[in-house]
């Protein structure tokens, strides 16, 4: 008889489990073949999310309670962190992208803290604790929020011409020869562009969820394979790295979608201009003393 192995899908909760259920439909309703349950409840992922928010808020309050011109200790560390983030954002999209720093930084801090929580012992194994990013509802919520925000920003920046990237009729205006065939091709390209916008939500969600959940499963499987829990420590290090990278990827992709949505498709040349820092702009990110 072969040795039994843990039943992964049953041993691991793919989503948070409800602690308090306010209302539920009970029976799953079939939406295009996928069973969907409308379930309004307070889950353990919500609870852990509150813990993350409390932790981040406490650190921010502690760091900014006594501000001094010569920072030391926690204030120094936070300033280094924020300056590093500002530097990074500017290296991606130039000084004009600095206004998306609050969104980018908040997403990054929240996601990285949540990802690192999944490595902490007992998180994911006891009833009240479930890493927020290991529940795809939370990732999907963040992805949909980011989607709505960058579409709104695109419409605000480009006005009605923003839809031209999906419905491009300029091909029909071309005169001469076989150029009339450009119209349908441009329409098709716009359709593909539109589909890729929708799929961004799906990939953002699943990438983060799969990585965090896969990491949790890998840690347990490695501990079980090696028989001694301490021997799985190198994989904990790997998971910490993956948590940082995946949080960075999510927020960085959101930032890049913002840049893509706000850049103008009108003429060539403007695109490159928007992505390059203007030499005359105030360089906030580099206005710091030289490091030794």
């Amino acid at each position, binding site marked *: 008889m072969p040795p039994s192995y843990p039943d992964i899908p049953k041993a691991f909760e793919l989503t948070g489990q409800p602690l308090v259920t306010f209302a539920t439909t009970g029976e799953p309703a079939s939406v295009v073949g996928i069973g969907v349950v409308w379930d309004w409840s307070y889950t353990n992922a919500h609870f852990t999310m509150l813990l993350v928010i409390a932790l981040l808020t406490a650190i921010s309050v502690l760091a900014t309670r006594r501000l001094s011109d010569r920072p030391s200790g926690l204030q120094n560390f936070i300033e280094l962190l924020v300056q590093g983030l500002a530097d990074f954002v500017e290296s991606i999209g130039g000084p004009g992208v600095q206004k998306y720093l609050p969104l980018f930084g908040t997403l990054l801090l929240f996601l990285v803290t949540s990802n690192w929580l999944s490595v902490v012992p007992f998180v994911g194994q006891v009833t009240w604790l479930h890493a927020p990013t290991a529940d795809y509802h939370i990732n999907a919520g963040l992805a949909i929020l980011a989607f709505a925000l960058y579409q709104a920003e695109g419409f605000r920046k480009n006005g009605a011409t923003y839809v031209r990237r999906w419905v491009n009729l300029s091909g029909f205006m071309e005169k001469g020869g076989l150029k009339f065939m450009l119209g349908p091709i441009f329409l098709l390209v716009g359709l593909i562009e539109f589909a890729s916008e929708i799929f961004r939500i799906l990939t953002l969600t*699943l*990438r983060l969820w*799969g*990585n965090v959940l896969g990491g949790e499963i890998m840690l347990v499987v490695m501990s079980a394979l090696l028989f001694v829990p301490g021997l799985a420590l190198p994989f904990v290090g790997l998971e910490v790295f993956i948590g940082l990278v995946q949080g960075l990827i999510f927020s960085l992709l959101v930032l890049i979608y913002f840049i893509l949505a706000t850049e103008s498709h009108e003429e060539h040349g403007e695109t490159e201009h928007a992505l390059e820092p203007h030499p005359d702009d105030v360089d906030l990110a580099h206005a710091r003393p030289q490091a030794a």
Partner: protein
Amino acid sequence: MNLAWLAAGIAVGFGVLGPGIGIGILTAKSSEAMGRNPDAAATIRTNMIIGAALAEGLGILAFVLGILLSGKA
């Protein structure tokens, strides 16, 4: 015998193949670039990690599919 386990194994195995090749090429090329131009190593490393995570996302899709399939067993 439940074929869902087999399906899960095949889905994950083949799905991880592509990202594996992609990350291999990515790492080889960026190591080469870092060797040629060590001054740009920091930028290249950042881009390499971003690209690796993007490629890995596709493998993760296969992994999620495998998890869902093995849940059917």
